[in-house]
């Protein structure tokens, strides 16, 4: 047989088989469409949040036999296929771990409707929370993670990994002792991981790794010195502004890692106490970082959860951040007035050395990084028009930089802080555990009752509460836990629909970092480097300088938010 004939016959055979399958499946579907009736509905909790994975069972009311069963989807909806023959009395049972069971008989008219092949929609069912031993386990584990992070006994990542291990340990091994210890299974836990956050942070880390090697930070610091012409009072706001703006687009820790050593050198050359520049700088970094989606990890969490875009953050927060920044500049200039007055005529030898350090080390790469970074900003701003997620923009930017600059790929991979990414993964699961068992719902309920229907009280409450708590506990896990609470308040408090409470959370959690040394990682890094230069920043010292700064900046930003949204 000739090859062309063989190919033609084969093609014909494929077409016949495909057509047969199509006809058969269409026939089956058609039969289903005609005969199959469904019992449909939705299940939610007291906060009107859809309940995922609830088992919906149709039972024979006389003997308790299961007739059909299904599970709720991610939107809390279910569609239970009704068997062709059903008894005269049936009931619907709903079961879900960490909730009370629910059962309701179907009326005779409803059963008749189903028997005739017509689908039936049940009213929305609200399940009541059940406090199980797992509730206490998840709550204690979460608190323990916060304590481990706050005390520094373990690295943040290790602390959250311990939390995850305990959660799974109780869920899988604890159930051998008691079913009540079950929190969630591995599959369910992954539903709490926000991959948008993980990929956005990873993409930005690669971008930062390329930018940081160009010497841009050292150059900026030296330019600040030259612009000030050696006048400490002028240098202070310029350095604060440069640091703050850099923090708005890069992460605060990297910014301070690079700005602190060069700032110490500038201060020593001018004969002033480096802390008079460093403390204001790190505070500015914590304040101005709030103005963009990528400026702080807490904003990345909030933006992804509440679908707040890069533009939304810029438009709704930047004016408030600028007002807070002006307040911060005035405050820091006042508290360090004595130190700033002590500036000497700078040493010629030391200034020559500084000028050498203040040069761009890699002009070509800086130019390329600048072009790509500008493109990323454009995509961050315009991306929402065509549903481009920030994480995708960050990954595209990172890849473009890697392809264009061709840096040592090993070095770039090393520059990605994998421990931070693992920290976020583990954190999502740990926070997911307290959501799963209902702790967050109870807190949301409690906060909702305290706030009542007052939008002003809700805004001030969320801002102040998150600011104060961020001074004593790590603001990232705190923010992750607060997101569902704020979402609940946004639905229940009249007038809060425009996500204003999420902006309050953003301001409180990030600016709260200024309240204490442990309030932000950037503070710790700055303190570590300053201490290495012989200028220790103690907890008490930072608290004394930082807490008033927190009050001033949060109050000013709060005023803006009230003006903007009320």
């Amino acid at each position, binding site marked *: 047989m000739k090859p062309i004939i063989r190919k033609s016959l084969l093609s014909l055979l494929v077409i016949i088989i495909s057509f047969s399958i199509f006809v058969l499946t269409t026939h089956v579907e058609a039969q289903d469409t005609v005969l199959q009736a469904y019992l449909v509905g939705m299940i939610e909790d007291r906060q009107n949040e859809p309940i995922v994975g609830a088992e919906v069972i149709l039972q024979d009311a006389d003997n308790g036999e299961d007739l059909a069963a299904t599970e709720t989807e991610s939107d809390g909806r279910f569609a239970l296929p009704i068997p062709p023959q059903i008894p005269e009395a049936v009931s619907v049972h709903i079961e879900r771990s960490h909730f009370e069971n629910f059962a309701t008989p179907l009326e005779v008219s409803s059963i008749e409707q189903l028997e005739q092949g017509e689908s039936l929609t049940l009213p929305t069912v609200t399940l009541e929370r059940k406090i199980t031993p797992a509730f206490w386990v998840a709550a204690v584990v979460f608190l323990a993670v916060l304590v481990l992070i706050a005390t520094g006994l373990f690295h943040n990542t290790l602390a959250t990994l311990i939390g995850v291990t305990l959660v799974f340990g109780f869920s899988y091994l604890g159930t051998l002792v008691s079913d009540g210890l079950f929190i969630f299974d591995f599959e369910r836990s992954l539903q709490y991981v926000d991959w948008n956050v993980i990929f956005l942070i990873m993409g930005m880390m690669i971008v930062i790794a390329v930018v940081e090697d160009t010497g841009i930070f050292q150059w900026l610091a030296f330019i600040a010195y030259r612009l000030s012409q050696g006048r400490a009072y002028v240098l202070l706001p310029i350095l604060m502004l440069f640091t703050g703006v850099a923090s708005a687009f890069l992460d605060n820790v990297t910014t301070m*890692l690079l700005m602190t050593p060069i700032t110490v050198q500038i201060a020593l050359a001018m004969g002033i106490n480096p802390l008079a520049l460093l403390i204001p700088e790190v505070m500015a970094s914590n304040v101005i970082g709030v103005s963009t989606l990528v400026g702080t990890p807490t904003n990345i969490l909030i933006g992804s959860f509440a679908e707040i875009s890069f533009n939304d953050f810029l438009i709704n927060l930047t004016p408030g951040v600028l007002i807070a920044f002006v307040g911060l500049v005035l405050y820091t200039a006042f508290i360090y007035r004595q130190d700033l007055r002590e500036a000497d005529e700078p040493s010629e030898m030391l200034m020559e*050395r500084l000028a050498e350090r203040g040069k761009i080390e890699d002009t070509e790469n800086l130019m390329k990084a600048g072009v790509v970074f500008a493109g990323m900003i454009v995509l961050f701003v315009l991306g929402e028009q065509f549903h481009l997620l920030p994480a995708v923009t960050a990954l595209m930017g990172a890849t473009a930089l890697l392809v264009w600059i061709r840096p040592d790929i090993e070095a770039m991979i090393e520059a990605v802080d994998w421990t931070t990414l693992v920290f976020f993964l583990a954190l999502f699961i740990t926070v997911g555990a307290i959501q799963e068992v209902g702790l967050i719902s109870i807190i949301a309920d409690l906060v909702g009752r305290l706030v009542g229907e007052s939008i002003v009280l809700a805004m001030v409450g969320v801002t102040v509460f998150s600011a104060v708590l961020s001074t004593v506990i790590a603001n990232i896990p705190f923010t992750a836990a607060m997101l569902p609470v704020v979402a609940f308040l946004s639905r229940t408090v009249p007038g809060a629909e425009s996500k204003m409470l999420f902006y309050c959370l953003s301001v409180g959690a990030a600016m709260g970092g200024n309240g204490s040394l442990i309030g932000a990682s950037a503070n710790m890094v700055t303190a*570590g480097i300053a201490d290495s*230069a012989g*200028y220790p920043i103690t907890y008490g010292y930072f608290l004394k300088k930082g807490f008033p700064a927190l009050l001033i900046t949060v109050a000013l930003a709060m005023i803006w938010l009230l003006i903007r949204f009320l």
Partner: protein
Amino acid sequence: MSGIVCAIRGGPTSKPTIAKAIELAKETNLVLHFLYIVNLDFLTYTESSRVRLIKEEMHEMGDFIVLAAQEKAENEGVEAQGAVRDGTVSEGIIEFSQEIEADYVVLGSPRAEHDENVFTRERFESFVATVEEESGARVVLSEIETS
């Protein structure tokens, strides 16, 4: 090679140490070596991927601190050199003293606050004995900072 090793951290607490070392260099006519140790223990609980970068920056800062001390010494007519090393403070001082076969090691006083990077008073006394034993140099202490 011989000389005086002066280990400094920078800041006000190093001023008496630098002054003492300059004074000793004038008396003995030996070359003064200012030493700064880069210790990255503070990164333990914060960043783990930035070690290379921050080490470079800390070296630059250490160079600058040492340069400032050198300038001060030279203003007082004392020849001074500078060195920046990595690692723990105690090991760095011993190794550098052995390397230049130092005659004297000038140290600042132990700080009051708890800090694993520097010496506690008890460890300081044993460290002084160890330096003298392992390097053959005599340890000279600067005045205790009371402020």
